[in-house]
């Protein structure tokens, strides 16, 4: 009887690819919760969990550890004073040390009554390839 000379490599690769796809499908179907990443001007009409990227607008009031929370506004990065400001009430650990008015932040939370009930703040690192600075 003639023996097959085909390499099992192709079978292994095919099974591996199928396996990876299966894991992907499983993850995206069962556990893959993605979150909308929005700008303050694009929040209208959204409900539920969101991530909002913007620049902090003062005044910053309150305390993230208290029931009333830390309160501040955010607006689109690089936008003028006319762009809409969305209010944030953040409760949780103290915000990062770089957190301040005009800083770029990513606020995670839920939209409640047109405001963001924040549960997490990430302050963007002032990094290398930032836009040209002004004197």
């Amino acid at each position, binding site marked *: 009887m003639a023996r097959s000379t085909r390499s099992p490599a192709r079978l292994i690769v095919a099974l591996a690819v199928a396996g990876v796809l299966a894991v992907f499908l499983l993850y995206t179907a069962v556990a893959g*919760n993605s979150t909308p990443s929005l700008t303050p001007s694009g929040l209208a009409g959204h409900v539920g969990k969101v991530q909002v990227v913007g620049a902090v607008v003062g005044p910053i009031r309150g305390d993230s550890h208290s029931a009333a929370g830390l309160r501040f506004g955010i607006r689109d990065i690089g936008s003028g004073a006319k762009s809409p400001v969305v209010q944030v009430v953040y409760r949780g650990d103290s915000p990062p040390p770089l957190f301040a008015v005009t800083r770029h932040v990513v606020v995670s939370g839920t939209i409640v009554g047109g405001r963001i009930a924040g549960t997490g703040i990430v302050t963007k690192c002032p990094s290398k390839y930032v836009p040209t600075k002004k004197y």
Partner: protein
Amino acid sequence: MADLGRAALAVSLGLAVYALVVGIVAARSNRRRLAVSARNALFACFGSTLVAAAVLASALVRHDFSFVYVAQHTNRTLSARYALTAFWGGQEGSLLLWLLVLTGYGTLAVAVNRRLLRDLVAWVVPVLGGIATFFAFVLVAIASPFDTQTAPVDGLGLTPSLQNPYMAIHPPMLYLGYVGLAIPFSFAAGALLSGKTDERWLVATRRWTLAAWAFLGVGQLLGAHWAYVEVGWGGYYAWDPVENAALMPWLAATAFLHSVMIQERKGMLKVWNMVLVALAFELSVFGTFLTRSGVVNSIHSFAKSPIGSWFLAFVVISTLFSVALILWRLPLLKARTKLESALSREATFLYNNLLLVALCLTVLWGVLFPILTQLVQGETRTIGRPYYDFFLRAFGLPLLLLMGIGPLVAWRKASARSLLKLLAWPIATAVVAGAILVAVGAGSSKPGLIAYTFSAFVLATIVVELVRGTRAAGSLFRLVSRNRRRYGGYVVHAAVVLLAIGIAGSSAYQTTTEQRLVPGQTMTVAGYHLTYRGATHIDTPNAQRVQALIDVRGPWSGRLRTGSVTYTGFAGETDREVGIKTDWLRAEDLYVIADDFRPDGAVYFKVLVRPLINLIWLAGLLFVVGSLVALWPDAREQRRLVTRLAPARA
């Protein structure tokens, strides 16, 4: 001086174009003198880029603010050391570093191989010339570091968070890694263009790939350590697109370094290796695109600069070029032998490769997901840490297991019985380690328990291999020196095991507590008692520093200081200064963050106890040692390769 820099860059561009165009003509028409001319143009391109780099470095050290770049990234109070790090602290300077490293690497690689691989090198020169043309063009036409202005009295300075010793070493390491991957890519493309697709290009570039891979690995670990000790959020890796940009090419290069051994030994996986080497290079350029385009949301503030579209075009064109080249040369890339068994050394390398590439593509999918959802759904959506952690476990744990099994499996075909016999000690070690871990309570985290058990298994296989080899060779030194690549690889495997133990221990078993304390109050975290004694304020001309003093009792007793520093200028930028006490015996860190100083004297403290985290940094040292062992020139191995590849040359 700026004129000299501009002229040097213009010359670099002209020479790179010459190396590209004349190199193609020379290689196609097989005109040797023309090929030498193209090669010399590449060498000269390095020389002129070196002149441009010297001009910029000199301007930075002299605080010559008539250079816009110097005024944007330094000021008079910045020391010469940090003024030099500003070379790669901005976009234009970092691109110049890219071109400098590329032409420097290219010159060395071409010079070393010009006689051995004349036909192949004739095509390598125009490929390197093409890559250099792109970077030189960007520097000349779009992002020149030599733009001038009327010099202001002082510059804007370097962002305080970048005034850090890590800034001197972390970015250059990454650049040496990213750019180094251009060398194996150019030789692979040269092999395809010249039709010399035997294993010689692999032998010529093996050390280049290894060096680039090692630089990229060390660069990432340095970045992780920088984030851990300086940024002050308690972690070291956030799956941020910028971090992933370095991880992806490293994973592809790791796969390539393994599969290359199969091609060298068995003449298999030729197409696969071409794909991997192209993937690693394209991902390294893609990473550069990510950090300059602003297309993805990152914790790093990156500009939406016009440079991004140029990089995207370069990635697309070079990817199409690679795919077309591989498809064109498919008939030359047929395997010499076939995989004979699914239980063989070759097969385990293949499984390893598939898992590494799957992990790499998973990370790529995560990075691209927001862009794709924006294109398809019209809304940007992100997938965060749970996605990456899930796939790290799904692919990382089998990879860890394979790292132990692979080196013990016989080439061609292994029997399950003989393999089980070889694995008896490692399996026994893993079972005992698992039982002990459950007994001491480590079963609270299943992924942690699995990672530790697999780690014990892999370490045991390495020990078994070393003991067996040492018995045969007579001494450990002789064993390692006779086969540096193999045993250097084992040391790197041991480093990966330490890394896995460190990651599992510090994430699965860490304790975190946040508490508000007034002076005199105490909090207790994982056996440590921390008493807040009060705050001190230190004002200097450049900064205001506030520090909380904490007395610690427990596994370690002493005083820790933690607080923050606010810089004058830089819009009042504030950085955390964390208090870290390392217990080297347990590789554990007590990590204290003073989060919020209140006017009433109270402070919110966040305290993390991270067991085994220091194994991650030890793994970095071991990784360097293993890479150096594998990189060290080995005349004996070279002779073996020459003998093995002799039929291919004929």
